[in-house]
């Protein structure tokens, strides 16, 4: 192999290749076994963790990702600006609005436009609905990892409530393609906020039941407490993000540190746990769902007070023909002016980030003035969290692996991009 790899000089042979992450093998000693977990293992998702075990104790772990890499960044360079929105959604379809929002924001920065206030509130509305649904999805997977079938069925059932709400708002269950340059695509339908309030009250009741049957259950607690501890300094060193970071005692949330949309106008808390173990990470997510419900209540009140306001920026709405305005009045659907298809974005660079359910996602967008992006660089939350396995798995028993994997809430398609 003649490819040059940084750090290794001269011609690269097979033995050098073994030094690369994902290729690590070495002579195993007495009582030392190598176990490949994934990528076909139902527990691991589309990733592989290579662990070396001494008896039952993990001595070395090597997270090997990249099985669902789809070249999102390169694909984005060959498409018009607007076509990036349905594309980047595919990274984490159950968190679609959060994942695409920074891309839309970055392009809006280049275009020099800001969406109307109602559009911002509608974006926050879908973001929080997505966040709750994504947390519940994570709970479901976590539940089945630790062998708690009830916790597998319940969150997936309750997630359906939020998916149904998102479906009603946007017209699609998962791939919403909802935020768009200059605003959003649909207004909240009649009666939506009432159903939302019902769902909020229902979810509060359910969280209490989750606590009783799962989080505070002594059987589960014994398996999660003091397992997979990420100390505060290690969490910062590794650069992990999202609820995992906050569960280790770091006050970092993009919604708090660099507020986007209308998060600085809303009253909510950023829960921070100190312990950093698997149980703290579960509690972190439970508390964050509570805060998301609190945000949704405020958003619902605001939307009720400001009905019928414009949800598309004037640049794309002022010149719209009367038919467009009639359709918006009747169905709440924002029709796109045909200029969207071949939109030319002014030359420049922009950066935007957002807090998804799994942590911070950031987009760097560069335009050379054409109708396609010159470069879109994405750093997703799961890509930053994957490294954790290497550092916290050693020392634990094999039975702790699903507990740690589930509590980190790693999502391979998002990490691989």
């Amino acid at each position: 192999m003649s490819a040059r790899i940084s750090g290794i000089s001269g011609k690269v042979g097979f033995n050098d290749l073994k030094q690369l992450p994902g290729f690590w093998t070495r002579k195993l000693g007495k009582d030392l076994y190598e176990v490949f977990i994934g990528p076909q293992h139902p527990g691991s998702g589309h990733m592989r963790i290579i662990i070396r075990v001494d008896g039952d104790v993990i001595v070395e772990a090597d997270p090997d990702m990249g099985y669902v890499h789809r070249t999102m960044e390169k694909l984005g360079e060959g498409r018009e600006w607007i076509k990036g929105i349905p594309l980047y959604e595919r990274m984490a379809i159950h968190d679609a609005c959060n994942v695409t929002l920074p891309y839309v924001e970055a392009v809006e920065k280049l275009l020099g436009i800001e969406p109307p206030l109602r559009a911002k509130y509608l974006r926050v509305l879908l973001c929080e609905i997505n966040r709750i649904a994504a947390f519940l999805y994570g709970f479901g997977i976590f539940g089945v990892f630790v062998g708690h079938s009830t916790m597998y069925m319940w969150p997936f059932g309750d997630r359906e409530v939020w998916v149904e709400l998102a479906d009603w708002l946007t017209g699609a269950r998962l791939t919403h393609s909802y935020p768009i340059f200059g605003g959003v695509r649909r207004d909240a339908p009649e009666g939506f906020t009432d159903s939302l309030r019902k769902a909020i009250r229902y979810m509060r009741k359910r969280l209490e039941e989750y606590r009783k049957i799962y989080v505070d259950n002594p059987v589960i607690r014994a398996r999660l407490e003091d397992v997979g501890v990420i100390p505060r300094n290690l969490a910062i060193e590794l650069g992990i993000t999202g609820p995992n970071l906050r569960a280790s005692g770091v006050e970092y949330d993009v919604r708090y540190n660099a507020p986007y949309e209308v998060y600085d106008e809303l009253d909510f808390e950023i829960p921070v746990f100190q312990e950093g173990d698997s149980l703290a990470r579960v509690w972190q997510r439970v508390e964050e769902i509570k805060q998301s419900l609190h945000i949704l209540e405020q958003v619902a009140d605001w939307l009720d007070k400001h009905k019928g306001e414009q949800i598309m920026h004037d640049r794309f709405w002022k010149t719209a023909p009367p038919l467009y305005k009639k359709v918006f009045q009747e169905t709440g659907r924002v029709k796109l002016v045909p200029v969207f298809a071949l939109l030319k974005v002014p030359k420049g660079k922009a950066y935007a980030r957002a807090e998804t359910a799994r942590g911070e996602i950031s987009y760097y967008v560069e335009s050379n003035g054409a109708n396609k992006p010159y470069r879109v660089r994405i750093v997703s939350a799961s890509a930053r969290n994957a490294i954790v396995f290497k550092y916290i798995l050693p020392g634990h028993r094999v039975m702790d692996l699903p507990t740690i994997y589930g509590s980190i809430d790693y999502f391979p398609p998002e990490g691989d991009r």
Partner: protein
Amino acid sequence: MPPKPVPKTKPKRGIFHKFKGNLEAIIVGVKYFFDPERFTLVYPKEYTKLREGYRGFIVLIKDKCIHCASCARICPASAMKMIRIPQKDPKTGKTKMVMWPVINYQRCIFCGMCVDVCPTEALYHVPYHDVVYENLAEMDIDLESFTKPPEYKTAKEGIPVRYVIDEEKGLVKVPYKEGEEK
């Protein structure tokens, strides 16, 4: 009012935490054993009547189309294509090529951008998504079938139901009556 970080702690373990925790878990489990929350859809005996605005299959209204190709240009998956069909001009009597949109459902991702971008509302979504095609070639729709709503083959004899959000039960399955929009 801006957000603020608030330190939280896991609930403390009391002296009787094991007894209390097990008892609570069992009580919740028993409660749902006798009063379960179920909303399984027994498909095809019943099917969901989706709300107006659902992004289902796409239909063309031929009279409204102005052959502008906006839908084909915005399609992120290149599912919508323009084809040229020879057509007689009624005024001059000459035959000329006219562009019409057709769709390939093998590629369509149902993002609905074509419907939103159409300047004359010549495209619309049907609020259902369970359509069966017998082979892949059938999914490449020609102009004639694109102007008709696709045939609803799978759950024709089922009962239409709709999911409604309920405060106590989460999602509740209610039978759908024609003309009732909720």
